[in-house]
């Protein structure tokens, strides 16, 4: 288990370093927030009062630790622009971002795994070559452009999906899901293409392994070996791929939320950047980074558990 402990410790150390980077970039670099907050003709007294109120008169180290301790208690500070607690703002937005990313991941797997498996089992044939060419094309489409084109076709021309964005879960789960479907597809397609291509190679590799040949030699049917042994074994490396693709998925969701006008974390991030709402950017970035790292950690533990052969190396 030392390998696992090392992985966990490594990821937590990385998280700590990431928090320092975020803090330095956003708390120390941008200068005095009072000039933004109080703006126009602030007097020195009101600037001093403002500094004291936000604790900006403390040393950077003290400020860093106060930030981290606050975060661990679920207190992320106050938004400059809205003057409300940031944790509430982010929590509100998570209700759209989390379902979107989950839906997109499920869709990407549902499309990517079977397509990859079909290509692998038809390796070298016309079907495989056609699929590979198509996937190469889909992998190359910018997701925001795909999103625009899909709105044009499905929302505005065919009117299958609402076009005005996602307005929360208040109108029922079904209408919420309906509004999220198109963005999730736009997000899923390039991912599905990457997963399919990877699944294909992974399955081809697995099918060439000795234990598959042994199983075949022992008289198991080709289909039986494929479904019971080869595919489950081929899926494990795909999990690693998903871990690596997570940041890309997060990036995609930020872009897609902005194209489809979904009030999620990605839209909040961009709004906060545009309004120079530094604490919101700082905490949101930290949260996304932590989310990606922890999910990654979870995936590597899962992979270890599924595939004991990997227990030695790091995933």
């Amino acid at each position, binding site marked *: 288990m030392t390998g696992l402990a090392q992985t966990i410790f490594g990821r937590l150390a990385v998280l700590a370093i990431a928090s320092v980077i975020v803090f330095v970039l956003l708390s120390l670099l941008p200068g005095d927030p009072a000039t933004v907050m109080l703006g126009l003709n602030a007097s020195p007294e009101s600037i001093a009062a403002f500094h004291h109120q936000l604790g900006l008169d403390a040393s950077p180290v003290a400020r860093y630790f106060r930030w981290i301790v606050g975060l661990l208690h679920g207190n992320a500070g106050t938004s400059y622009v809205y003057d409300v607690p940031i944790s509430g703002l982010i929590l509100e937005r998570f209700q759209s971002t989390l379902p979107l990313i989950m839906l997109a991941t499920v869709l990407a797997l549902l499309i990517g795994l079977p397509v990859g498996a079909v290509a692998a089992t038809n390796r070298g044939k016309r079907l495989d070559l056609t699929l590979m060419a198509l996937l190469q094309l889909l992998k190359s489409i910018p997701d925001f452009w795909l999103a625009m084109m899909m709105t*044009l076709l499905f929302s505005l021309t065919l009117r299958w999906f609402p076009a005005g964005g996602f307005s929360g879960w208040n109108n029922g789960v079904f209408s919420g899901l309906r509004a999220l479907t198109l963005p999730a597809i736009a997000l899923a397609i390039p991912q599905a293409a990457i997963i399919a291509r990877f699944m294909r190679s992974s399955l081809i590799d697995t099918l060439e392994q000795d234990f598959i040949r042994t199983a075949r030699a022992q008289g198991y049917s080709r289909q039986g070996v494929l479904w019971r042994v080869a595919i489950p074994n081929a899926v494990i490396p795909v999990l690693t791929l998903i871990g690596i693709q997570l940041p890309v998925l997060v990036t995609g969701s930020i872009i897609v939320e902005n194209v489809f006008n979904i009030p999620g974390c990605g839209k909040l991030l961009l709004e906060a950047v545009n309004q120079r709402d530094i604490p919101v*950017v700082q905490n949101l970035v930290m949260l996304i980074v932590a989310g990606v790292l922890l999910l990654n950690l979870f995936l590597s533990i899962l992979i270890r558990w599924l595939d004991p052969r990997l227990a030695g190396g790091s995933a």
Partner: protein
Amino acid sequence: MILRGAPKSLIAGSVLLLGCLFPATMAWIWHGGHAPFIDIPNRYAPPSLAHPLGTDPFGRDLASYVLTGAFNTTAIALLSVVLATVIGTILGLVGANGGKRGWAVMSATDLGLAFPPILIAAMLVTAQGASATGEILAIVLFGIPAQIRITKQAAQSILVLDYISAARMAGFGSVAVTIRHVLPNIAPILIVHASTSLALAILSEAGLSYLGLGAPPPQPDLGRALASYQIHIFDHPFLVAVPGVTVMVLVLGFNLLGDGLRDLLERPFARNEERLP
């Protein structure tokens, strides 16, 4: 194995890239790197001899604008990939040689995993405002970890070979061994990776500038062009289609080039096409 397809993807990729980047470079030189001049009375002109793709909402020649944008987008992506490759390769070689430095380098790659370019760009824009430097920095920082990982893996597979031990015993230091024996041997893998990284970097660049986190105007840029033309998706869908397809052609071109190069250069190393990015 689809060896028959390998040269095809190399040819297809090269054709796409040449077909796009040659006129893009010409357009860029012709306009001195600037956007073509505005001509408001002539806006939304249909395609003609003077304007093969018509004009945009400012009356600029759409073809020149998009081509100049394609040049700028590719230039930013190329610069980012070159920087990421150089830095990542050096760090990866240090990492492959092991020791304490190696461990530190490998932790740094985990760190990079957590920071997609969009987050780096968001932080830099918040702190310093939008700039081309910030955008390049964001793409470079994201590209380095993958470069380190790939260099390290490839280098380690060489370092265990017998003749390396022989060279070591002959008194060559690890730097000399790395430069004389490891680097030439892993070069094909690095070249292939650079090509696919370029595809990813172009996607990142377009996405960042679409969101306004990229290089600021007035230099034309494909992502920014899409952002400003998108309200015309109904009345002038052409305006949205042209820059979008251009991004796709560039990305597809570099992806195909990467595939082709892999089959051509890496045959002794890899039996299979896809590798973790």
